[in-house]
């Protein structure tokens, strides 16, 4: 094998498509070729990062077929009955809770040098002059261009505030959901557990989105001027 052939074969190797004969030939070539060894490192890195950069999400809901008579009729009526056997109250409570979390996304709007940091759904059309009130509270902003430090403090405070508000709201809704469970039979526990998995997954998504926003904000902050016009 020469370098050209090996380069192609290395992709197969990294993608688990190389046969044992091909592997032997690759090994033989790699033993005497630093360039192809470096290429292999590069290819492995690419796959590793691809996998790490595409994390697999939990499902919002597990899929299950109902057994018994349904099997014969081609499982008709199964679609659309995802919450089968789950008490409506609990399902609704959990759904409300999940929605609350989804609403908590932080939003940062930058327009013409103006900043708006808000939480909740964005107004349909955001303009720099008319700020319709978002679901959460906005953090008051100093006029003019922010310093990097100010921006970071502002973001940190706003995110912290939103998270605290969310945590309190989540706890209250969760308690409501659980109190309903008390009135039900134990048989519903299992179904609830399924719903709670969704709740957890939603929380994770929320966390991820919050972290993403924070990362994005940090990146933006890092591009702001370090000082505010004080320099000569």
């Amino acid at each position, binding site marked *: 094998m020469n370098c050209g052939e090996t380069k192609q074969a290395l*992709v197969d190797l990294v*993608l688990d498509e190389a046969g044992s004969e091909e592997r032997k030939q690759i090994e033989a070539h790699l033993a005497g070729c630093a360039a192809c060894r470096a290429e292999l490192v590069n*290819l492995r890195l*690419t796959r*590793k990062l691809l996998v790490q*950069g595409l994390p*697999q999400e939990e*499902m919002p809901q*597990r899929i299950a077929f109902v057994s018994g008579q349904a099997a014969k009729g081609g499982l008709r009526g199964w679609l659309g009955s995802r919450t089968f056997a789950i008490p409506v109250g609990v399902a609704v409570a959990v759904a409300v809770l999940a929605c609350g979390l989804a609403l908590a996304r932080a939003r940062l709007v930058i327009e013409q040098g103006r900043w708006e940091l808000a939480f909740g759904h964005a107004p349909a059309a955001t303009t720099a002059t008319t700020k319709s009130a978002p679901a959460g509270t906005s953090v008051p902003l100093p006029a003019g261009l922010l310093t990097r430090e100010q921006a970071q403090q502002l973001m940190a405070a706003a995110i912290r505030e939103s998270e605290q508000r969310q945590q309190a709201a989540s706890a209250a809704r969760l308690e409501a959901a659980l109190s309903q469970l008390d009135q039900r039979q134990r048989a519903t526990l299992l179904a609830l557990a399924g719903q709670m998995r969704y709740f957890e997954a939603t929380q994770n998504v929320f966390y991820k989105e919050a972290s*993403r926003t924070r990362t994005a904000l940090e990146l933006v902050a890092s591009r702001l001027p370090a000082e505010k016009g004080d320099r000569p």
Partner: protein
Amino acid sequence: MRGANLLFRTVGDRELVERAAGGDVEGYNLLVSRWEKKLYNYLLRLTGNRDDALDLAQEAFLKAYNNLSRLGEADKFPQWLFRIAHNLACSKFRSDGRRPQADSESWPEEGEDAAPVMTGGPLPVGSSTRLYPLELELLVARALEELSADQRHAVILKAIYGFKFAEIAEILDCPISTVKSRIYAGFEQLKRVLGGDVGAKAAFQK
């Protein structure tokens, strides 16, 4: 270890497929629980929408169940299932007349739910001295967006789900040679983004 997993997967699937084909719904549920998360996430990449992904996954499992008798070789259940799902997703977007927001689910389009920060130009990843895991997700998403949809699907089926070239050819209903050229070209392009200095930076984070 990987080989052992694949062996387990194949043997286990076959048994469950046979049970399900014989009318054992619980057997099918086991099969579903084994593949649902993978299928859901693949559909999520295709559609960019969690509700659509879940609906399509359900639809695919239902369709697969109803057609189990047509599945010649039980071993081929995974690629057969993914093929059903892939086709359902494609025809859904054809009939809806909307464009799948493939791979951008975590970064919605401008004007929707997007953080406007993210809509302007490439992220200045290189400007940071460290590459955070979240930056990596962004980087990968952006790198994948650069590929054609065909390349992207093939690369994901290969690199993330570990399907063989021949299996991917069955899923995407095209010749193996086509699958290979899509994956080689796509992976080469990804390597240029992920394999360079940026990639090394991310790797040293771990």
